[in-house]
C-alpha cells in the first residue's frame, strides 16, 4: 500500500475527527439524560448493598461483564455494522437490520425501567444528532422510531450514530462502556457522597472490565445475547416501586 502524502494527511484528518467524535459522545456533559439514570444502583444503595467505592467497582464489573458485554454491546455492534454498510437513507435492508438489533435488545432487556431509560436516552441522542448533522440514514432510523416501528434503545442509536460519523465499532463499544460507568459513578457520587478522586479510582478500576466486555461481545450474533444479572433485575424491580428516588431507573 503506497499512500501519497496527501492521502496520508486525509486519513489522519479522518482518524482525528473520529477520535474527537468518540470523545464528544463519551463526555458526561452530552445532554442525553444519563445523569437521571442509575440502572438500579439507587436501590442497591437504599438497601445498603453498595456503601463505598469498592462495592461500586465490584457491582460495575457485574454490569459490564454480565449485562453490557453479552447484551447491549452485541446490539450496538449489529447496528453499527448495518449502518456503516448503508449506502444512503433509502437502504431498507440496512435499516431493517438496525431495527432487528433494536427489537431484539428490547426483548432481551427484562427490567421495565432499563427499557424505559434506554429508550429515553436513545431518543435524546437521536434528536441531538439530527440537530448536529444531516444524515439520511439517521433520519430514516429516527422516523422508524417515531412511527413506533422500533424502540430506539440507546446502544442501538449509539451504534448508528458512531457508524455514520466514522467512529469504529470497537471504539463505539468502549464509548458505551465509558458512558455507562461515568453515568453510574456520577449517580454514586450523589447517592454516596463519594469524593472526586474515589470516583476516578472506580472508573480506572473498571477499565479492564470495560475492555473485557467489549471483547465478550465480539463474536455473538443477535440471538446469542444473554444478559443475566438477577440481583440487578430485582433491585430494579424494587426501584420501580420506591417512594422516594432521585433517578428514573
Amino acid at each position, binding site marked *: 500500500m503506497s499512500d501519497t502524502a496527501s492521502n496520508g494527511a486525509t486519513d489522519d484528518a479522518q482518524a482525528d475527527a473520529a477520535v474527537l467524535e468518540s470523545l464528544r459522545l463519551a463526555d458526561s456533559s452530552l445532554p442525553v439524560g444519563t445523569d437521571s439514570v442509575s440502572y438500579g444502583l439507587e*436501590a*442497591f444503595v*437504599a*438497601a*445498603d*448493598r*453498595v456503601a463505598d467505592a469498592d*462495592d461500586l467497582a*465490584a*457491582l460495575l*464489573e*457485574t*454490569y459490564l*461483564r*454480565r449485562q453490557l*458485554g*453479552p447484551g447491549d454491546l452485541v446490539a450496538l455492534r449489529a447496528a453499527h455494522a448495518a449502518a456503516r454498510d448503508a449506502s444512503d437513507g433509502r437502504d431498507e435492508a440496512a435499516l431493517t437490520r438496525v431495527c432487528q438489533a433494536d*427489537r*431484539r435488545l*428490547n*426483548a*432481551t*432487556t*427484562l*427490567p*421495565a*425501567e432499563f*427499557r424505559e431509560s434506554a429508550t429515553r436516552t436513545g431518543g435524546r441522542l437521536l434528536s441531538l444528532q439530527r440537530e448536529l448533522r444531516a444524515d439520511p440514514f439517521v433520519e430514516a432510523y429516527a422516523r422508524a422510531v417515531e412511527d413506533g416501528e422500533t424502540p430506539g434503545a440507546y446502544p442501538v442509536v449509539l451504534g448508528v450514530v458512531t457508524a455514520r460519523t466514522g467512529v469504529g465499532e470497537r471504539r463505539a463499544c468502549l464509548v458505551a462502556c465509558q458512558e455507562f460507568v461515568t453515568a453510574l459513578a456520577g449517580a454514586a457520587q450523589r447517592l454516596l457522597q463519594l469524593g472526586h478522586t474515589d470516583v476516578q479510582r472506580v472508573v480506572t478500576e473498571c477499565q479492564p*472490565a470495560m475492555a*473485557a466486555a467489549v471483547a*465478550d461481545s465480539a*463474536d*455473538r450474533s443477535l*440471538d*446469542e*445475547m*444473554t*444478559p*443475566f*444479572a*438477577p*440481583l*440487578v*433485575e*430485582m*433491585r*430494579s*424491580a*424494587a426501584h*420501580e*416501586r*420506591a*417512594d422516594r428516588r432521585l433517578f428514573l431507573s
Partner: protein
Amino acid sequence: MATDSASGPGELTAQTEESTDRSDSTDDTTDLPDPAFAAYAEESLPGAGVGAAGKDGRLELAFARDGTETRLVRDLARTPFHVSGTLGHDPHPAGETVYVQSPAGGVAQGDRHDISVTVGPDAVAHVTTSSSTKVLSMERNYAASDVALAVGSGGHLDYVPAPTILHPDARFGQATTVDLAPDATAVVGEVVVPGRLARGERFDFERYASTCEVRSEGELLVADATHLAPGADDGPGPAAPGMLGEFAVLGTLYLLAPAADAAALADRLHEAVVADGATARDAAAADRDTDPEVTAGATRLPNGAGVLVRALGHRADPVTDRLHTAWDSAREDWFGVGAPADRRQ
C-alpha cells in the same frame, strides 16, 4: 436454539405417531445451548452415542377443550419420560393436570431431551414433574433439553416443573420456546438448585445455560437467558454482587398474558412476592437489617408479554413457595381461581 414447532397452537387434529427419528441430535454444532458448549460438543461419549436410544427422551403432550373439560388428546412418552395419566385437582373447572414421571436416576451426559406441550383453543392444562430433575455429574459432552410450549386462542398452560438440581461437574443446556395466541395465557417456571445443598454441594456444577423465548404471531416478545458457569474464569461468578450474591437458588416465573394489563399485575405480584406480603419499602428495610430467606421482585416483561417474577433464596422450598404465591395471584387475577396445590409431598 430451538425454533417454534411446525404446527401452531390449536392444530390438534389428526395426530399420528411420529415414526421418523430425530436428526438434530447429531447436529449439535448448529444447535448449541450456548456458544460456550462448543468444546463439550466435540467430546464423544463412550458406549452409546449422544442422543442414542435411551438418551433421546421425548415427551409430547397435547390438550384439547371438550365441552366443559380439557382432555389430554395425545401423549407420547419415550424413555426416560413416563405419563401415567391425568389428575383433576386443578381448581379451574376446565383444568387438567399431568404429572410427568422420569424413572431414570437423572439427566446424564449425552442426553438430548425433547419436550413439546400443545394446548388447544380454550383448553386449560397444567404440566409438572413428579420429582426434581437431577442433572448428574459429567465427564464428557453435555446434556440438553428442548422445550416447545404452544397455547392456542383462549387457552392456558401452566408449565411449572419441580426444581432442577445441578450435581457436581454437570453441564446442562435448556432451550424453551413459548408460542402464544394473542389472547392465550401461560405460566412458565423454573427453579435451579446449584447442587445437593444438604450435602454441602454448592456451585460445583460446570455450566448451566437456559434460554426462554416467547413469541406471539411470529413476533419475538421476550428473550431471557440464564447462564451460570461457576468454574469459568471469565468475569463475575454466581456469587458476585448483582448476580446471585449470597443466595444459591434461582427461581424464575414468567406470567404471560399478552392481552392483559401487565403494569397492574406486575405491581400486585411484586407486592405479593416481597417478604411476607410486606411493602417494597419494608422489604428493603428487612433486607438491610437481616439476611432474608428469599429476595424476590416482579417487573413488566417487554412488548406487553406479561410479568417476570424472580426469587432468590438459600434453599429450594422457600423459593418454590414464593413463585407459587405469584402463580396463585396471577391465576386469581385471570380466572378467579388460584393455582393448583403442590401434590408432590
